[in-house]
């Protein structure tokens, strides 16, 4: 049995079943590699971050400063063509359907459809 690592603690932890843990850890493909622990299944949930798999979590430096980014974002919101509201809803109703046969404002739309 070989002593692992510099600290006496990890050495102690490894003394029982070192070989088993080594093999277990390597198989798990844990980013912590062959570091010793009591249980080979500890840290097995850790997945090495793969930037290509999750592009949204990659941190990049934005060329534009925050003020310009705000100008662009607000402008894009204004210039995006608004979706025309469906026929049976008037914007003032807050997307609520009129209950009765004729709603106050909804009456206008319902007569046209």
């Amino acid at each position: 049995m070989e002593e692992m690592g510099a600290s006496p603690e990890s050495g102690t932890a490894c003394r029982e079943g070192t070989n088993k843990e080594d093999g277990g850890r390597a198989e798990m493909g844990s980013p912590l590699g062959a570091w010793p622990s009591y249980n080979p299944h500890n840290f097995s949930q850790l997945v090495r971050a793969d930037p290509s798999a999750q592009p949204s979590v990659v941190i990049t430096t934005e060329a534009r400063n925050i003020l310009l980014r705000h100008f662009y974002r607000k402008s894009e919101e204004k210039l995006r063509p608004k979706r025309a509201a469906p026929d049976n809803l008037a914007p003032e109703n807050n997307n609520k359907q009129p209950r009765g046969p004729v709603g106050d404002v909804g009456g206008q739309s319902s007569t046209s459809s």
Partner: protein
Amino acid sequence: MARFFRSGNLASRVFDRQLLSPRRGAAVNTIRQFYENLVPSYTIYDIDCPDYSFRKFTDDGKYLVAFSRNHQDLIVYRPIWLTYSCNEDCDSHDLPAKTKKFDSFFKQLYSIPLASSNEYICKDFFLYMECNQFGLFATSTAQRNDSTATDGAIHGVPSIEKITFYLVRLEDGVILDEKAFCNDFINLSHSIGAYLYEDLLCIVSLRYQTVHILQIRDSGNLVEVRRIGAFCREDDELFLHSHAQTGYGGSFLPGIKQRLLSYIFRKTWNEVPDQTLRVQHLKKKFYFHFQDYVDLIIWKVQFLDRHHLFIKFGSVDGGVSRSTDQNLAFFAVYNMETTDIVSLYENSSEELYSLFEQFYDHFHANPQDSSHGKFISSHSNDVHALDQLRTIKNKASSSSQFVKKMMVSLPYTCQSQSPSPYFDLSLFRYDEKLISAIDRHRHCTEHPIKFISVRQPNVVKFKIKPGSDSGASDSRAKRISSLFHPFFPLALSIQQTYMQPTVVNIHFRR
């Protein structure tokens, strides 16, 4: 908040510095706290100095720029420090006689003539390019108000026969390049008509409604790289001439105006999704005001970064004066590369105000700013200033009038604020009506201007007393301006009284 409980004693702070490293990104803020201990508390009144018009310390603290009284010569000084020696204990002695001399504090490097016979240096205009130590100055001939409209010039804007910009290497006074504008009008007061960002300079010709973008090369050459106004892209003019139909009587609106109108059209078009209501909406919001939009002129421009300009548009009568009236005005963000207007706001826009409140520092951020230049206090980086602003906003009777009043400070005026740590609102409180980081002449007050510690609200750290009273003279006729060195505890206060010689006082740490 922890610093409120630490000792303010200088020795104690020096020991703390050995043990504690500042929080990340706050090294300059931490070091600036030493300025609470090192203040320009000693004043020499009416120092014996040449009768020059002292303009400004450069932001790197290396030079003091001055102009001769006849506005023809440029004089540059290097700030030095008073040195003297005593045989005995110095503190008990008065300062030596040479303290009263300007030469003990400033060494004259050179004096060069800038303006020729009928021209005058505009003493309000000065921009400094720190990396190369280049200074930009302007001279002009007299203003003519009865200007005849020439081709391309708009009505209502006066004309100046010749305005010349000089690029001077401040190290030795060599004039590296010059650029002249003839029969034009550029707002030179307080450098409003120009803006320097890194090595790019924009100059706004109000008369011809053109924004000239120049690059300052390391060699000292001023090279025009772009001209925005009648045309937006470099090849617009060529394109129009080659495609112009003969016999076509009308003329095109200037390129920048076309961009503005098309933006307003698209925005108005998108406001109403319903096809049938859209045309009505356009008539009301766009076509009804079409002529008002066409009549808008460029007032002031600044860079937001190397590719974007922030342009203020307004009516002709408001453009020339420096009045702070609150007529209708628009702010546009213009991308020079794509020639698109990115966004447009009215000067009463709450949305623009909220960006102003949160990101005011980004309006004047310049990657080439010296470290103190990056830490100029504003309501966006100081809680006390923000609190004050919000209090004023809440007390304002009309929200839109308040917003318009705040928007008067945009676009930002280049290098208009002193980076001196004594104006740092997290260190000192002072009456902003009497003195502030913005260099302006103010009316003289009889009372000294107090700088009070923020940490210890009852402690006056130092005072700037405007000057010895000259007896019976009316204090209203006195104007005072102050020049603070960017990082030394050194300041000049200059008192000007009508028909009397200028008095210069020097404030420093003894």
